[in-house]
């Protein structure tokens, strides 16, 4: 089958993917295999152990069989896949054994991603992911269509509705550069490799992984030849052996950290290589990636909150991470990540000004939450999790050491204090700003008219002290302000309801 012609996407005919989509399916399957690797490799390992003389032959056979199945599956998927565009909808037919039909209206589309892996670049093909929004999650994936067609589809889909995202045009009505007819997109940011290195270095997860695996690395290193040689050398002059051992372990931990840093930096560069974001006609457009070029287009109205994050490592490097949170299906996931890694404070401020032109939050003074926060967290969160094991262990073992978990109480105090210090909120009457964190912190900026609902709650102690906790539900995530004065909580609620109910702008 030939690839579909690169004409109008809405031909009313069912289209097929390019035959090269088979490659995409195989690669995707391999990726899944690697991700769920351990389970998949276990039978092979078993074969390796019990296989005897001809084990390599069997392993080869097994690999060949899996490979053949994979290719066959990919070819079948390709053969059974059809798509078409009609009446503002994307229609998909797919499934090898269970036929699946899927319809996705253009107005329910949240964002569109074009991916151009290395193996597609030669043929001018891309894979296209369409993410929906609403109360159920639908994702359409077209694994291998000509770039021209993909761009045509993207244009059709995104210009389908009269865009209600042109608020900016009104605001900056004076400047001609942003009238609707503008063809040249406004550049938002282009990330240098140096910034990506910084991003890789400040990735919090790196530190967590490094900390978790340093134990293993230390073990491996203490069994290594270097260590044995070192030990032999130490044995010659005995006195300093313990110090050297400790030094060696410290060295191994630092070494682990170093390895993870390098991996994190390489990872950051590979995924974010040539990070480039532009803005045109109410839509953000981002390209990035080394092996696989990825292009995401996101209508700005879909963005619910902006989060400006700074991990403690990034704090040392004076950089921030900017998250644009889209409508999410399960709270917490925050939708597919759309963020700008490693930006300066100046950029973060500029960007938020671009987004919320009349909200000058850097000039705002944040209000603190009440100190009762620390006491209550200690009493209701830390105490149960430390006292319960302490009691159980003490009773079971009969040893006084069982009370050790209670140490958590004084130890957690500084962290709770930090969290309390970092909590802050401010509003100009139309937007909200909430800060939270320990050493690093996160600023959430959101316009009141995008709020979905508000929950105000009070415990008896809060009621007595004239305090309340506010939970502001946005379509992307929930923003919480605990232990704020009741007056403020009530004012916030009134203002949010007022803006939600009086604003004629769509929140999405």
């Amino acid at each position, binding site marked *: 089958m030939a690839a579909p012609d690169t004409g109008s996407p809405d031909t009313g005919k069912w289209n097929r993917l390019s035959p090269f989509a088979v490659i995409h399916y195989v690669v995707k399957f391999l990726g899944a295999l690697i991700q769920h690797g351990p389970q998949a490799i276990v039978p092979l390992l078993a074969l390796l152990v019990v296989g005897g003389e001809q084990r390599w032959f069997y392993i080869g056979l097994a690999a060949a069989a899996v490979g053949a199945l994979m290719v066959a599956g990919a070819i079948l998927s390709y053969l059974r896949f059809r798509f078409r565009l009609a009446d503002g909808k994307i229609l998909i037919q797919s499934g090898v054994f269970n036929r699946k039909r899927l319809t996705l209206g253009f107005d329910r589309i949240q964002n569109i991603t074009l991916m151009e892996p290395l193996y597609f670049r030669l043929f001018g093909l891309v894979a296209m992911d369409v993410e929906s929004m609403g109360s159920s999650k639908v994702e359409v994936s077209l694994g291998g269509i000509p770039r021209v067609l993909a761009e045509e589809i993207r244009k059709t889909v995104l210009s389908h509705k009269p865009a209600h995202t042109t608020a900016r045009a009104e605001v900056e009505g004076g400047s001609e550069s942003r009238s609707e007819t503008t063809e040249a997109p406004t550049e938002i940011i282009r990330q240098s490799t140096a910034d990506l290195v910084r991003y890789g270095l400040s990735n919090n997860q790196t530190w967590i992984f490094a900390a978790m695996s340093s134990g293993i690395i230390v073990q491996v290193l203490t069994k290594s030849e270097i260590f044995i040689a070192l030990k032999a050398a130490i044995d010659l002059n005995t006195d300093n052996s313990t110090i050297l051992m400790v030094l060696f372990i410290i060295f191994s931990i630092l070494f682990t950290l170093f390895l993870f840093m390098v991996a994190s930096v390489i990872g950051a560069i590979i995924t974010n290589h040539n990070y480039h974001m532009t803005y045109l006609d109410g839509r953000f457009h981002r390209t990035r990636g080394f092996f696989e070029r990825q292009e995401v287009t996101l209508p700005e109205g879909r963005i619910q909150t902006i989060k400006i994050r700074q991990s403690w490592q990034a704090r040392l490097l004076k950089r921030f991470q900017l998250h644009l949170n889209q409508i999410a299906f*399960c*709270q917490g996931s925050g939708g597919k990540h759309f963020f700008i890694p490693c930006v300066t404070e100046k950029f973060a401020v500029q960007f938020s000004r671009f987004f919320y032109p009349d909200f000058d939050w850097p000039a705002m003074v944040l209000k603190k939450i009440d100190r009762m926060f620390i006491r209550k967290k200690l009493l209701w969160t830390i105490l149960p999790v430390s006292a319960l094991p302490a009691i159980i262990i003490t009773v079971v073992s009969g040893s006084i050491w069982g009370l050790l978990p209670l140490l958590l109480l004084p130890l957690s105090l500084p962290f709770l204090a930090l969290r309390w210090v970092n909590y802050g909120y401010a509003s100009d009457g139309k937007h909200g700003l909430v800060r939270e964190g320990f050493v690093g912190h996160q600023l959430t900026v959101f316009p009141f008219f995008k709020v*979905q609902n508000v929950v105000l709650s009070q415990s*008896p102690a809060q009621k007595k002290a004239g305090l309340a906790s506010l939970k502001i539900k946005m379509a992307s995530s929930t923003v919480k302000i605990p232990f704020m004065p009741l007056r403020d909580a009530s004012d916030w609620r*009134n203002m949010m*309801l007022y803006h939600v109910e009086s604003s004629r702008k769509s929140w999405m």
Partner: protein
Amino acid sequence: MSDTETEIPGSDFTNLPVEKNDLPTTDNLEFEALSPRYIRTLYIEAVIAWVVLGISVSLLYFFLEPVRAVTSQWWFLLPVGILIILSFFWLRMVVDSRGFALREKDIHYKSGVIWQKMVSLPFNRVQHVERESNPLERIFKLSTLKFFTSGGSKADMKIPALSFERGSRLRSYVLDKAAADKTSEGQSNGGS
């Protein structure tokens, strides 16, 4: 997204800056009580729960010596008896603490005897409304309304114990309001 305070020409809609104190307040809402039959469903549920608990304890009573030793003592039975009686008073307080308030453009639901909370939900953010009744509610001709907004799959507001008639009236009222808002939103978007 900006929302500058502008006046739209040719429309009576204005959006001038408002002082905090001029805003409609949610502080003194008049809450409507839930159905008087609600307390009965809760009583029945409590009776069922206590009976199930009682049966399981009596089973243990016959098979385990220590249980028999404890449960036949007055110092055990008296507090349990008080607890059972108190639990019914508690339910009364639970019912009294719950209620909803309707305004022109939003709905509020308060709940909680000790930890009190109030959910405020503007009509124009309602995605869909579910009406459901469990068997017990059906016997008493009651229904629970669940309101959903975008983001997250859990219901954002649950109003229990509405009579069938009141429940469906409230549901269609809210849905009408939500739909009305959507069309006006669409028009203003198309026009701009």
